């Protein structure tokens, strides 16, 4: 039971982490550029 539970949970967490890493890589990069632009225009 414990083995199955932690297998499913670990797999879900790893999949979530991969998705978030991809999303944050692209959208976070845009945020970086926006922040620099905003501070440059001050």
């Amino acid at each position, binding site marked *: 039971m414990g083995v199955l539970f932690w297998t499913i949970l670990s797999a879900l967490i790893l999949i979530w982490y991969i998705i978030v*890493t991809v999303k944050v890589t692209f959208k976070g990069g845009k945020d970086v550029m926006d922040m620099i632009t905003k501070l440059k225009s001050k």
Partner: protein
Amino acid sequence: MTNFDYFIDGGIILFYLTVTIAAGLYVRKLVTGVDDFLVAGRSLNLYLGIASLAATEFGIATCMANAELGFKYGFAGITPGIALTAAMFIVGWTGFGIKPLRDKGVVTLPELFQDKFGSRIRWAAGLVMVLGGLLNMGVFLRQAGNFLAIVCGFDMGYIEIIMTLILLGVAVYTILGGMLSVLITDYIQFVIMSIGMIITVSLFAIKFGWFDMLFKLREQLGDGAFNPFENGEYGLDRILLDILVAFAAVLTWQTIISRVLSAKDTKTAKKIYIGTSPFMVVRFILPAILGIAALYYFGPDKFDDTNSIFAMPTLIAEVLPVGLVGILVAAMLAADMSTNSSYMIAWSSIIYNDIMKPIHKGLWPDKKGLRWNRLLIGFIGVFLLLYGLWYPLTGDLWVYLQVTGTIYLSSISVLLVSSCYWKKANDWGAAAAIFTGAVIPISYLVFKEVEATQEFIYTIGPYKIGVFTYVSAAVAMYVGSKIKLIKQKI
């Protein structure tokens, strides 16, 4: 024995370091005042906020501490991560504590307390936060040095030089670019760290066989490895402390809160919390899996209580192939640099904004304020180096982090909740909570080193003391506030 190759792995690390430090230095020109330096002009957006918060809360010390928990307690060791995820999600979803904090537009937590409790409490809160924060951070450098020495195969005699080099690399861009450099480098570090961790954990799961690892874990640690309630070493007092620390940390830990304060508005701050909350369990479960892999590879006898923290780095050094070692070391350096830079700026911001306030009264020109903030970061760096060299860590690293964090988490979380939601809270209660919350864990740290009291302290254990501290701080706030109210009526 290590598979680290100076040419291939060293090249990967050198490339990573060059890119990060260059990016950190590039944005330094955009810092024009103290507000830019401490809260990046309050221009933090959602995804950069998630990357920054995740990268900050995952350092080499955290990774080693959580791998040690996995090595010793199996999956039961990730209980603090589950508690942190739940706490961050609930706080982000409800806005409890963080909404009034961000709405006030303050730079640090103690600044919020000024209105409710007065300037003396602001000063005392700042002092206790810096004390707890610096003692907590004091062990980071040594753990990073240990990790790098083992994985890269350096002689342990060079550990001080490694620690100094890591610190210098971080200090240069943090001193010059402040929070802005921290955020930009955090982004790069999040990407590198995530790629390195995902590849490494997946590789071990495939190489050793996921189910083989888990069945051997049950054979060696029993069912308690999968359920903290069945784990003799992981009792109810420890679980309760994990929950209390989790809520207090997401409400008041300055490096976490600084993202709330840097967010462009309250809505974004809440979304950053909700978005980052699952990462709190990631930062426990991935290192714990590495610890479980180390237990599978070495068995339970090679490492004992005194050196179990070295199991995970030794596994990486011996098993990961050339090239991948370099990626993982770069990932860990990324994790560590983002943590160190954020922690340095978090504590320096409190020293400048709250402890030094009686001196500068907020009247110093921006240039002078910037110079002082940069100097403070330099002083913190020197302290970290000296403390890291001097302090002999005994017991679980995670427990040390919890106990030192409790020095201020217990009282400041009570102060935050009281200042936002309890009209009758006053400075007497706040002073009593700060004093109680600091004295108990500091006494624990001192008495566990004194021979005459050592046995007694170990009998009680850090978990009961931790829980007692949180309860005492809350009671002290209530009693202190009531006494002042009664005295005023008389």
